[in-house]
């Protein structure tokens, strides 16, 4: 295991794979995305980096930017999408990316499993419109992440062997990366208008396409029994007698459901 600051960047794995990463990410370039960086931190506080901008990684370590951007306790952060320019806690990092890579207007996508994954996507300096691309194409980006996980499976597992550790202990970087934001996790729902939970709505949505409870269960990765219970509960809430009436009611009055779907 090498410490981040002692890495030999030119020969390190993330340098040698940057072309491979570029090839995987290339479908996004058409939409104005110019840089991509996948940064993963494992529970033992080691990290890997798969990136289209390897030279920035060097800059990142030499200037101790990891102190701002890599703080411990990853599981405290919420999954979600974040714009760079609102993350004031790490403003220096993004400013450096702007200077070094001519990329800006980016987002971070954070996914937490047994490790913390962060995807950085950004566009050219003079293209603020790329932010609208992120907003309008969120479904596609979500799909892209799946696609990336599949395509990059091999290089990710290879990168694990070349992972690096962060110098110093966690306390050295004690400033929380994104203050204030993570407290107000958004709860969906518009007042009393919302009768159904997100899951209930999803179950109905799939059922309306003609899928059986078994198939819905597979899609949502829950058991068939749970699906049936969701449907049953929403049936009671909306006061209808059978599944068909339920689906009809929900599809006709989509406005009464306000969940992110």
């Amino acid at each position: 295991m090498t410490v981040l600051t002692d890495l030999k960047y030119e020969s390190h794995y993330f340098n040698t794979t940057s072309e491979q990463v570029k090839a995987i990410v290339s479908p996004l370039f058409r939409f104005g995305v110019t840089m991509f960086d996948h940064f993963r931190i494992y529970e033992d506080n080691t990290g890997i980096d798969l990136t289209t901008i390897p030279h920035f990684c060097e800059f990142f370590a030499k200037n101790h930017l990891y102190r701002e951007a890599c703080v411990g306790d990853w599981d405290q952060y919420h999954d979600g999408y974040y714009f760079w320019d609102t993350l004031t806690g790490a403003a220096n990092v993004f400013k450096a990316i702007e200077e070094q890579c001519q990329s800006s207007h980016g987002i971070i996508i954070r996914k937490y499993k047994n490790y913390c994954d962060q995807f950085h996507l950004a566009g050219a300096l003079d293209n603020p419109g790329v932010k609208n691309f992120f907003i309008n194409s969120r479904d596609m980006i979500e799909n892209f992440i799946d696609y990336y996980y599949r395509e990059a499976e091999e290089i990710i597992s290879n990168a694990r062997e070349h992972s690096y550790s962060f110098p110093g202990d966690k306390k050295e970087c004690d400033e929380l990366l994104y203050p204030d934001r993570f407290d107000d996790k958004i709860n969906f729902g518009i007042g009393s208008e919302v009768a159904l939970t997100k899951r209930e709505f999803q179950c109905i949505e799939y059922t309306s396409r003609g899928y059986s409870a078994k198939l819905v269960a597979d899609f949502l990765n829950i058991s068939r029994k749970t699906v049936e219970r969701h449907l049953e509960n929403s049936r009671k809430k909306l006061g209808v007698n059978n599944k068909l009436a339920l689906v009809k009611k929900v599809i006709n009055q989509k406005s009464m459901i306000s969940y992110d779907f």
Partner: protein
Amino acid sequence: MISDIANIELEKHFVSTSSSAVDEIISPLKVYGISHLSLSILRDHDKKGGTIEFLSSDPRMLQPYIDNKVYKEFLGAGCQNYIDCAVLSKTVEETSPLLAQLATIQGESYKFGNGIDVIQTFEDRCEVYYFASDIDRHHMQEFYLNNIDFLRQFIFLFREKAKVLFNKSREYRLYCSGGGDDTMLTSDYWQSRTNKANIADLYNLTKKERECAGCIKFGYGAKEIAVMMNISKKTVEKHVAQIKRKMHCKTIYELLLRLQ
């Protein structure tokens, strides 16, 4: 009753009198920091001009809009140029000095800012929903990014609840002359602003394959797709095989999952 936008008296106009009703409908959004909504509905537009209807939770937002003739910027070559999309106001302000100026006025005088335009087009009209927050809530952008579907759902709700207001505002619509050809807000502009993409772009599907994939997504079988697309069943199967290959799926079931 159509009056000219240049000489309306905003205080006496329907926009002002209806504002508390609009404000009440949007009150559930306030929990999330969205404090204002202005809706403009554009109809019958060509280069010369067209009509515009306003519904606003706070008519003060509209005064600088009218004073500075910002509406001209929106009209341009007609509203058929609009596409369904969401646009962060900040990204528009960076390219349009007029809108930037407007934003400054709104920010300084009324403390509005951090907005987003959600545009929805229909055959006969185009609805532009402008949601705005307070000037210092920078992370509203993030709320939009994470919850854009939520906003769209809210628009459904809004339409349902504001039916009466919609009819009324149509009666009080305003005529305004357009900006001619000079406008920057053409369809190319919107396209380049938004760059909508979907899963088919990711896997480089052809046009026919996209159509097929769309049908598969909704659970149609090869026979039905063949009828719908007016091609033979064999061809459909060929397309499906190609989609499966491109998307690395072994079975149709796997493909279904991936298309969701």
